[in-house]
């Protein structure tokens, strides 16, 4: 495990500094956040304090919980600089000016504890310049830790060390950033832009200039550059609107200034007057009046508009209709070879980006896997450039570059007649500069299903789920359905899995490597079944789900769920029925059924009631727990982090959090084995619920909201059913309610709701628009 730091100093409280500070605090580590003195006012800490206050209002939130924000202490570099001596790591995130940075370093030299690592978050200044003229003591402790914006959500951290940097210190920082901050650390050489930005800026610049050159509309360019290449569907122009157009000229100028004369970047980089005009008129992207895209709100209407390069004016957004994309399908080579402007554009941008990536070996790094990882995590590409080359074929790329008179980088040449990656004996290997393949080794202690799959076959499998042996007597249950939505088949395989673990294994982990743990039950199927009035089928799915959840809970072996991303509805119910949850910090869990006019039917109501009823902080009596659960479930509340899930009791105090996505499975497995040591299944719980009087009280509250216009007609119907379930139906305060009874109530109410047109309309709307219907 990483040696935990107890306190970290972050100097500079701009967006990046504050974001890094927030992520360190999210890890539970104290932060001293320093900035300059305010220009006016008597509060000498105003700058850093203001930054924290702003961060608390930012969406997406830099903080995972309000408690995390309290771990940050604000200060200024005049009064508080000496306190860096309290800190185990000093991160410099001040303006990108060499003189200012160096002055700060000299001042820090005077006050820091010797041997305390110092790093800069610079994205443009080489390490060699930063350390120029500084004593060796300093250079030994110094490195660049380059985070990406927003630091909480972007999983890449580029680590650059100098010739003097102490390797153990660098390892320590790398390990902390990996384990505590959840970053994937990619080692880079001290070359301009490091890896991700070097290639990313090349790609974006090319994409913009080639759009104009080939006469594509912005929508067309984004449609070509987006989905087909596995780039986020915002494409290039959407991305530039997001990061800010005003950055582009700066970044490009600094890149152009830093790169040698013969670098290919110069050939594609040019001044684009229209971008200058946009920036001047305040169209700096989403933070400004708009960018390449804008929302025109004049005349009370909201019209999405797009910049037209030909006229320089905005016009209504026009969906790109490109038969070339349809024809090419998933075949990128076909797309890049398509006759006409679309194919030419795809080639001009991506063909050259791929070649440029190859050129970065050995300039920016010696390993292709570093470049791929940097692009996947720094730019959210689905595939790194070398993976893309393997998809189109290195030979094809080489041949085409040759044919068009472009240089073929040596690293690309090396892949001629083969591929950059291959799988040998169940292990993924990469091509090295020596032309040999070597195993790709993950940092110590990482276990990935992705790797296991290369060497093994699933123990069990059907159309919606697979089960893997992850060693030491632990099985891993993986959802494989679309969006990991839950269906009959998942329940069927779960039944088989439980039986198998009982017989032959020690523990079960429920985990997958999709972007979301599970978005809940397959609503499309449910809606279709409801539309054809197949009530029995739906009811039996609910009943089977309930049965499976109970089986999970009371199985004679431990079950650990390890969610990451969304765990909604039924996905959340899996967590609630597990013995333990090992949650990725970025887990967004909640019982959201009411949003689509339903209620939790797989024991979600039952479990949440049980948790709140036994929470020692709750006031006594049968009403507080139902009221609390009602408040959360009726509003379909979703925790925006694992930390928030704790506050909602979706996670218990005993549940644990993993910061690094890659480490989730290993942590979950460890937890499962811990529990297996002397495991005893839980005792069934009985609780006291208020019955009809409680229901009336909840309904009255909702009626009140309805009067104020805060609850819709169908909200009243849905909360009415929810109130019935949560208060125990017709139970009496003097009786205790068994789990089975609450499950029956859940099921009955669920079925009644499913028969209402209001609920069917909500589900349909959600499926078709992705947004809730307020009917």
């Amino acid at each position: 495990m990483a040696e935990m730091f107890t306190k970290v100093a972050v100097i500079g409280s701009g967006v990046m500094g504050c974001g890094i500070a927030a992520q360190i605090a999210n890890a539970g580590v104290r932060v001293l956040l320093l900035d300059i003195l305010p220009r006016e006012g008597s509060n000498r800490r105003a700058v850093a304090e203001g930054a924290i206050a702003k961060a608390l209002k930012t969406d997406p939130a830099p903080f995972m919980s309000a408690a995390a924000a309290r771990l940050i202490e604000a200060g200024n570099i005049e009064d508080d600089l000496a306190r860096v001596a309290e800190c185990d790591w000093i991160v410099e995130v001040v303006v990108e000016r060499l003189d200012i940075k160096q002055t700060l370093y000299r001042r820090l030299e005077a006050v820091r504890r010797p041997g305390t690592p110092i790093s800069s978050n610079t994205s443009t200044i080489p390490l060699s310049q930063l350390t120029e003229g500084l004593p060796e003591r300093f250079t030994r402790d110094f490195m660049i830790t380059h985070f990406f914006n927003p630091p909480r959500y972007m999983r890449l951290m580029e680590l650059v060390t100098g010739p003097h940097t102490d390797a153990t210190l660098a390892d320590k920082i790398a390990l902390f950033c990996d384990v505590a901050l959840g970053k994937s650390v990619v080692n880079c050489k001290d070359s301009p832009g490091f890896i991700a930005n070097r290639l990313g800026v090349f790609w974006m610049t090319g994409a913009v200039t080639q759009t104009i050159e080939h006469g594509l509309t912005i929508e067309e360019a984004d449609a070509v550059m987006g989905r087909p290449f596995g780039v986020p569907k915002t494409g290039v122009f959407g991305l530039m609107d997001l990061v800010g157009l005003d950055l582009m000229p700066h970044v490009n100028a600094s890149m152009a200034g830093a790169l040698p004369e013969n670098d290919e970047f110069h050939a594609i980089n040019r001044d684009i007057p229209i971008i200058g005009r946009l920036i001047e008129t305040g169209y700096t992207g989403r933070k400004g009046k708009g960018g390449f895209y804008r929302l025109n709100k004049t005349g009370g209407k909201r019209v999405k508009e797009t910049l037209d390069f030909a006229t320089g004016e905005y016009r209504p957004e026009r969906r790109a209709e490109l038969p070339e994309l349809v024809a090419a399908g998933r075949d990128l080579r076909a797309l890049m070879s398509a006759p006409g402007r679309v194919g030419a554009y795809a080639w001009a941008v991506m063909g050259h980006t791929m070649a440029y990536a190859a050129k970065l070996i050995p300039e920016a790094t010696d390993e292709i896997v570093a470049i791929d990882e940097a692009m996947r995590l720094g730019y959210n590409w689905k595939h790194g450039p070398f993976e893309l080359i393997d998809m189109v074929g290195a030979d094809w790329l080489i041949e085409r570059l040759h044919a068009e008179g472009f240089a073929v980088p040596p690293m690309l040449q090396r892949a001629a007649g083969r591929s950059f990656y291959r799988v040998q004996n169940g292990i993924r290997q990469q091509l090295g500069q020596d032309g040999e393949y070597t195993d790709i080794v993950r940092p110590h202690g990482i276990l990935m299903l992705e790797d296991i799959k290369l060497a093994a076959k699933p123990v069990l499998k059907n159309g919606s789920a697979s089960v893997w042996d992850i060693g030491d007597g632990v099985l891993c249950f993986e959802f494989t359905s679309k969006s990991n939505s839950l269906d009959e088949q998942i329940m069927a395989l779960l039944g088989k899995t439980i039986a198998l673990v009982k017989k032959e294994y020690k523990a079960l982990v429920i985990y997958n490597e999709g972007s979301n743990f599970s978005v809940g039950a397959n609503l499309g199927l449910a809606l279709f079944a409801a539309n054809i009035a197949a009530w029995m089928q739906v009811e039996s799915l609910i009943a089977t789900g309930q049965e499976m959840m109970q089986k999970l809970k009371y199985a004679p072996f431990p079950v650990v769920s390890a969610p990451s991303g969304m765990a909604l509805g039924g996905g959340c119910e899996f967590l609630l029925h597990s013995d333990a949850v090992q949650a990725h910090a970025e887990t967004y869990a909640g019982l959201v059924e009411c949003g689509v006019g339903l209620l939790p039917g797989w024991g979600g109501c039952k479990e949440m009631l049980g948790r709140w009823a036994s929470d020692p902080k709750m006031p006594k009596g049968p009403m507080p727990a139902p009221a609390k659960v009602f408040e959360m479930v009726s509003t379909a509340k979703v925790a925006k982090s694992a930390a928030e899930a704790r506050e909602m009791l979706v996670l218990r105090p005993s549940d644990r959090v993993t910061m690094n996505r890659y480490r989730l499975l290993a942590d979950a497995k460890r937890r499962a084995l811990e529990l297996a040591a002397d495991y005893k299944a839980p005792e069934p719980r009985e609780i006291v619920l208020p019955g009809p009087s409680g229901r009336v009280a909840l309904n009255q509250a909702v009626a009140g909201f309805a009067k104020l216009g805060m609850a819709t007609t169908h909200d009243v119907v849905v909360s009415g059913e929810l109130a019935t379930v949560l208060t125990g139906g017709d139970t009496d305060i003097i009786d205790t309610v068994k789990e089975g009874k609450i499950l029956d109530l859940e099921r009955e109410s669920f079925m009644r709701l499913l028969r209402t047109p209001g609920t069917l309309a909500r589900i349909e709307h959600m499926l078709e628009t992705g947004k809730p219907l307020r009917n």
Partner: protein
Amino acid sequence: MQVYKAPLRDMRFVLHELHNSAAHVAEIGQPDVAEELIDSILEEAGKFATDILLPLNASGDEEGCRYENGVVRTPKGFIEAYKKFCEGGWGALASDPAYGGQGLPEIVGKMVEEMQCSANLSFGLYPGLTHGATLALQGHGTDELKQAYLPKMIDGTWSGTMCLTEPQCGTDLGLMRTKAVPQEDGSYRISGAKIFISAGEHDLTENIVHLVLARLPDAPKGIKGVSMFLVPKFLPTEDGRPGARNGVTCTAIEHKMGLKASATTQLYFDEAVGWLVGEPNKGMRAMFTMMNAERLSVGIQGLGVAETAYQSAAFYAKDRIQGRALAGARYPDRAADPIIVHPDVRRSLMTIRAYVEGCRALSGWVATALDLETKAADPVRRQEAEDFVAIMTPVVKALFTDLGFELSSMALQVYGGHGYIRDHGMEQLVRDARICMIYEGANGIQALDLVGRKMPAHMGRFLRGFFHPVQAFIEENAADPKVLPLAKSFAALQQATAHIATVSLKDPEEAGAAATDYLRMFGLVALGYMWARAAKVAAEKLPAANGDAGFYQAKLTTAQFFADRLLPQTSALWSSIKAGKASMMALEDAAF
């Protein structure tokens, strides 16, 4: 002999007793369309059908249409009958009062349509197409066009057509070639050749208004590049009279299997003046307004012919004597028993009857939705009705027309050799009924529409309007053993629906392979539901029925026959659906 008298009692049953016309007209804001009014309209329409249209059916078939130098003459008597038709206001029945229509509910309009189809299918096509054209124009035309054309079309002075088909383009309208070139004055010049155009040229009206699908010069390829144009035979003058001859000529009429008194024409458009209806390149949307209505009407054509076939066969079965009843002579004083005593002849008669009455009940249900779609006050009800029409359109079109042909052939069989020769008119019914399975989208295409478009739309939302009421009815009547066959076949339909929805996600060919069987299965369950409800109504009314007891008793018996003998086909259909496409698609193309 073609025998036809409008089945007024059954029509009244369907409208008033089964579908509660009183509540319906109240909901669509026409409470003054009382039962008595409806009944008197039906009675008059029935007389018109039997007295005026039926006598021209066989003669019209014999004589056919004649083509000479671009002019088409309809058979003897058609001009006079058409005049009477217009004078009686029969064409304007369900049309918009804003343009001179009578604005009667569709539930009445569709019954009257059925009578006309029963009595004379060929004749019915002329006003039928006009009605469809008025709907498209009303939905998508400019005010100017509507004012200039609708009143004349609704009163029947002018007639309408729909011009889609070209030699190379039938089902696949994306292959269309006819061109439309915009002019400075806002009009267009249309050029191209159309074939198979019903009522494209004739001598019944002073002008003909063609709704033509064509491509604009910059139109996208395929179906998304088709626009609709109005092209009159004569350009109207300022005062609304037919003026200069437009550049559209009839170059020939088709010689065909049946429907001979209906002119099926080849039209040549040569720089003909036309006006855009609806938006550029959105011609299919405009045409669909018309086609949905037309498809239901074509379904009713199938039903209409089958009714006449039934009446004719029933008449003959009681008249023709051959052989003796198996259980012993029933009419010992005669040389032989009438063939109606034979079980197999009974099977035919009961089958035709059960289908025909079931279809009529179903068309009544769909007609209520046609009314609600536009006239219900509650937007939710309007949407529900629209969804229901969407799902039922392909079912009604294909089921009714398949049956129209099958049943008229069955009726012909009752006549034996006398059905095959021309004298009795039975073979005409078979020939006439056959086209209904082809035009307005061949029935195979209807089935694809059902499984490929309507079923998956909005995660099955269109299905709701059918499945929910049926399920509710089954639940309400769970104790009634008579409802059991319906419950069973409905459950199979639910399974088949879920099955097709699932398999076709992975392989659209599976949906294609299942489509026709599924549509028939759906149709059978729909008829089964109508019969179960009809039986319930009949059982309730029977005790106090007095003079009508025979009618209700017959309903109950026919309902039982449907449940016993026809509805079980759903099991076989479900089996074939489950079998999937494998054996259907296995052979290489060259093996055929």
